[in-house]
């Protein structure tokens, strides 16, 4: 069916993308693996050190903190974000007057450039004058020391991540809309209440998309902590309250000029991510099996 000229034409159209995939993803991945075995600071030639970088990571207290902080963030932020995206999508998936304005409002924070978003939160989280503590104080609630208390700082990062659920929100809406309407009509005739409908129809059907969203959010959470950690907290408050894995990689690679060490940390970060997603997959399978039986 395919003439040679046509096949050549299609390959030509694909060529830039293939070059991009190889040059921007394939080769950097290989470089990262190779560099993790070297010590390299861009100035002197690279020096082979074998697995020393990994050994050093194993004993590096700051790296331990980075792994723990990232894991804690994923454990807190991803379920909350998913809940938010799911809940809001169930609220706003039907076409109704004003719905697209609400949806635009919910998506808008995602559109703000990361650095601008971080600057807003430098202001919002100001312990003395920021609107959040002013509001909490007015309600008689405790006012956390966002910049000086390690626990408050980490919650601050979780808090600011809860507003950028716009993309997950839209994906959840798309997934919800794919569920055939007849199923809900059937549930209505069987006099099924909202919770039963959710448990037996909505959730099983949306489960695959929700799993993909969760997986994507785990991966994405390894990126979205970077700009806030850098610009708002600079990895602190001391010792390392908001040093997450991406921040650790950036600091060691681009500030301390230890590119081999940063490459090793990148590999570990990648493995940790794969492990988390594999775990998520098994949990998701267990739950969907339970739901469907």
């Amino acid at each position: 069916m395919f003439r040679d000229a046509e096949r050549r034409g299609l390959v030509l159209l694909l060529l830039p993308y293939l070059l991009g995939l190889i040059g921007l993803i394939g080769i950097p991945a290989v470089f990262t693996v190779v560099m993790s075995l070297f010590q390299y600071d861009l100035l002197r030639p690279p020096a082979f050190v074998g697995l020393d970088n990994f050994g050093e990571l194993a004993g590096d207290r700051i790296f331990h903190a980075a792994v723990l902080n990232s894991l804690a963030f994923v454990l807190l932020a991803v379920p909350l974000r998913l809940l938010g995206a799911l809940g809001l999508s169930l609220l706003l998936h039907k076409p109704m007057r004003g719905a697209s304005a609400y949806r635009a409002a919910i998506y808008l924070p995602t559109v703000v450039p990361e650095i601008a978003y971080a600057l807003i939160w430098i202001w919002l989280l100001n312990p003395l004058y920021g609107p959040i503590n002013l509001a909490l104080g007015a309600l008689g609630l405790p006012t956390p020391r966002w910049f000086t208390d390690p626990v408050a700082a980490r919650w601050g990062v979780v808090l600011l991540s809860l507003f950028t659920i716009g993309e997950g929100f839209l994906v959840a809406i798309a997934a919800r809309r794919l569920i055939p309407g007849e199923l809900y009509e059937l549930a209505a005739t069987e006099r099924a209440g909202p919770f039963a409908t959710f448990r037996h129809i909505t959730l099983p059907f949306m489960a695959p998309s929700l799993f993909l969203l969760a997986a994507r959010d785990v991966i994405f959470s390894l990126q979205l902590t970077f700009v806030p950690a850098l610009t708002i907290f600079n990895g602190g408050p001391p010792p390392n309250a908001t040093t997450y894995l991406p921040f650790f990689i950036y600091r060691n690679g681009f500030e301390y000029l230890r590119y081999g060490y940063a490459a090793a940390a990148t590999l570990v970060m990648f493995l940790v991510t794969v492990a988390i997603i594999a775990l998520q997959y098994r949990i998701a399978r267990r739950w969907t099996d339970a739901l469907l039986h």
Partner: protein
Amino acid sequence: MRSCTDRASRWRHALALPFAVLALLPLAMMVGGSLRQLGLPPPRTLELVPAPVAWENYAQTADLVNLGRLMLNSLIVAVLAVPLSVLVASWAGFAISRLPARPARLLLGVSLAALMIPLTAMLVGRFSIFAWLGVTDTYLPLVAPALIGTSPLYVLIYYWAFRRLPGELFEAARLEGFSPFDAWRRVGMPLVRPVTVAVATLAFGISWGSFIEPLIYLFDPELYTVPLGLRSLALLDPTRVPLLLAGATIATIPAAAAFLIVQRAFLRDIGL
């Protein structure tokens, strides 16, 4: 039946409104805070619109960071990256849509896998390539991601769009002796114009707001883009919050405007 849906939709409004307002609050605080007069003590109460309104903060911010230069630089990068992204993404999406099932599925799988890789995992690897090529402190590393369409997601979006077109169109084109490039240019692209608008706008938003890549590749302040200028502002003068917020607002406006355009022109049509 009618009263049932009216009551249900009134509930939805009642529940949705607080969340929509909540989502907009940080942005409202950004704009409101940027207009507070410098030199005044910080507000003791929550205020959305300060009095007096200090429009001059914007002029002052623009001066402090040489805003004109920053915006020009960001624009140069966007003008290079966005059309290239649209070309690469639409070419690849079109080609995959015309391939037989096995190679198509392979490429789609690779694209999905590539989508799942966070930028921060590629930082060290990509930087070493560009450093070895000697092109750090240029715009090349900032424009290069256009070669994966800025994001493989846009390749996928184009693939889905082209797949939804009737196959007979391309059969006819083939019979007329159109090369794949001709088919892309004269049959495919005109029919997916809304997708092109959406992809271009999204790619613009990403290019405009990009912070990590300029951060690690650009050293010459003359080359800085708007996000880097904002960071310099935060480092220079962290106490004059209204100026920081004015900078944040200036940086946000193009991206927000682009989004609202897409939302009206495109998302509405597909019911979002």
